[in-house]
């Protein structure tokens, strides 16, 4: 209140307004849109350009190929993207800290391989116990690497590069010691884990889940907004809240509608939302919650921008960084489980070295910064979708892997260039 009515002569210069979120300035819809427009021109556009880019790519492919915009292909595309999205979310923890973790691919695979080996014959553990042990292994590996990075003050690049090699070795060792592994393949023998990607919920369940989520989201938003308003704090205009809600509901409805159409053949119809989509959603919400609403998340952003400021604020920097690396590896484990579920097995030829690069690319294409301190879970989600769309669409056009790789590289370069250029323009102090 007092802030918004501040003396005009000393208010911030107009071009500095671009770094403000529109909802902290605007009281009405037109104001909001104006502030938003200003932000976009100033390079603080958030997720918009990437969403527009995604739409453009999709339109291009749907014009070029008749099979791109079929529900079969769209659902397939979503399912393909989930592994890289989750791996990107793992990498996000490192990127926020202004670090990098090159080992996420193989660390995740080690965890998933342990879990699958324990669940299948001859061990035959109950599925959740195997999963817990596998994911705990990932968490410990991450904590171990994080400890080396923080205590011995070795750059994360080097430690996780060693991890990239070392954990691949451990992965091979897991395959060698598992008597159930035949020819370097551990099969997913449990129906629940197999159904994570291959299985779908019923059509009705999809709609019920969507309605429940939208209602929950609406209630949370309205409660929070009205509480802030009651305390005299700034809130986004009601129209914006309603528009956001409407957009979320519409997007969800389109998604469920597409998933609920028959994507099998006439004799064996397949329909419904694949379980992996709500699974990714759960990980997304959990990570968003941790980053935005807890001290741990706040400190991770602080350390990413200025470790010195964080240290002087009394934050235990080494501990926070170690926990972040552990969470990074844990999320990678979840990603690898999704990978195994999709392929029905995990093999000794798992290409963790390439996947980690896709993970970094997904986070950065989506809008997370390589320079630390910026990035939200929605960024790897969007970036992962872009990569999956490119791979999927180019494959439909019968373009070779060579062409796909080059196209992905070009998109990555453009995304990083846009990020660096716009950031330099709008945030001179932010270090790029």
């Amino acid at each position, binding site marked *: 209140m007092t*802030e918004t009515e501040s003396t005009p002569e000393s208010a911030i210069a107009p071009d500095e307004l671009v*770094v403000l979120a529109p909802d902290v300035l605007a009281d009405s819809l037109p104001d909001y849109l104006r502030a938003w427009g200003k932000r976009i021109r100033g390079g603080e556009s958030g997720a918009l350009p990437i969403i527009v880019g995604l739409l453009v790519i999709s339109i291009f492919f749907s014009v070029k190929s008749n099979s791109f915009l079929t529900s079969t292909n769209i659902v397939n595309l979503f399912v393909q993207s989930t592994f890289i999205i989750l791996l990107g979310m793992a990498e996000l923890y490192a990127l926020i800290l202004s670090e990098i973790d090159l080992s996420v691919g193989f660390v995740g695979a080690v965890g998933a391989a342990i879990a699958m080996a324990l669940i299948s014959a001859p061990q035959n553990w109950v599925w959740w116990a195997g999963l817990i042990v596998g994911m705990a292994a990932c968490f410990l590996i991450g904590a171990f690497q994080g400890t080396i990075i923080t205590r011995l003050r070795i750059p994360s690049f080097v430690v996780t590069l060693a991890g990239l090699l070392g954990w691949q070795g451990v992965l091979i060792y897991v395959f060698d010691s598992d008597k159930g592994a035949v020819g370097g393949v551990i099969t997913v023998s449990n129906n629940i884990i197999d159904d994570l990607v291959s299985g779908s919920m019923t059509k009705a369940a999809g709609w019920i889940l969507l309605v429940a989520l939208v209602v929950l989201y609406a209630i949370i938003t309205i409660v929070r907004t009205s509480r802030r308003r009651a305390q005299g*704090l700034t809130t986004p205009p009601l129209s914006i809240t309603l528009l956001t809600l409407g957009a979320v509901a519409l997007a969800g409805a389109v998604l469920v509608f597409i998933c609920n159409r028959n994507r099998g053949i006439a004799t064996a119809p397949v329909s419904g939302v694949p379980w992996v989509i709500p699974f990714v959603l759960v990980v997304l919400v959990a990570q968003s919650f941790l980053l935005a609403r807890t001290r741990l998340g706040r400190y991770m952003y602080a350390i990413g921008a200025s470790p010195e400021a964080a240290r002087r604020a009394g934050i235990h920097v080494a501990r926070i960084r170690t926990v972040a690396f552990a969470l990074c590896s844990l999320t990678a484990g979840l990603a690898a489980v999704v990978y195994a579920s999709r392929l029905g097995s995990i093999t000794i030829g798992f290409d963790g070295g390439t996947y980690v690069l896709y993970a970094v690319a997904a986070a950065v294409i989506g809008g997370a910064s390589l320079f630390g301190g910026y990035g939200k879970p929605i960024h790897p989600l969007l970036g992962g979708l872009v990569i999956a769309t490119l791979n999927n669409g180019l494959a439909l056009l019968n373009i070779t892997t060579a062409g796909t790789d080059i196209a992905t590289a070009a998109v990555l370069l453009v995304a990083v260039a846009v990020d660096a250029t716009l950031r330099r323009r709008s945030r001179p102090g932010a270090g790029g």
Partner: protein
Amino acid sequence: MAEGAPLLELRGVSKVFGAVQALSGVNFTVPPGKVTALAGDNGAGKSVTIKTISGLWEPSEGEIYWEGERVRFHSPNDAESVGITTIYQDLALCDNLDIVQNMFLGHERRRYGLLDESSMELAARQTLADLHVTTIRSIRQPVASLSGGQRQSVAVAKAVMQEAKLVIMDEPTAALGVAQTKQVLDLITRLSGQGTAVILVSHNLNDVFEVADQISILYLGQMVASGPAEEFDRQVIVDYMTTGQSSRTEATR
């Protein structure tokens, strides 16, 4: 110091780094609720003095008294826990966090284990209003968007928020333009008006005369003059800062 016990007192503090005598037998008194300027040329020992007070290192010799009691600061946390906050030139703010987040960094309020944003935002707003910081458009903007003076204001408000009894400011106006310098000096006056003692480290004499109640001058690691600001004029201070003595005054040694 006629008016009651000092808030902070250094008695015979020396600091030796290898062969270098950075401080020798420094006596320094800081009264509560006043602005004490610590002046001196580059290399006179201003930084060493404030780093000793803020607990960054311990004196080689001598004693520190806080509110009349002997204290030993082994770390910055020790100094902070009694109520000493130091604002360094680089301010230690996180550019990507907003004003509220920066003001509460390391001291976040929580509710059911989660960050209590509303409560922090209200408190931050109140503190800034108390300090008459009115040039900030929204306290939810990242500090990257602030001017130098505004950033200084946020750093000061952060100290106030943590209920500091003594705020040490290291060259707060060094990088600022005229208008922003005035903003910061007003802030210092208001801070001491609220009962917080301030040590202003500066070699800008305009600043010193504008806000200081007490002036202490260091020369080559020794405290060469201390006294109420009225006892000094510009020429006297320059004499002390450059030669360690002045023939024109009898300010207490």
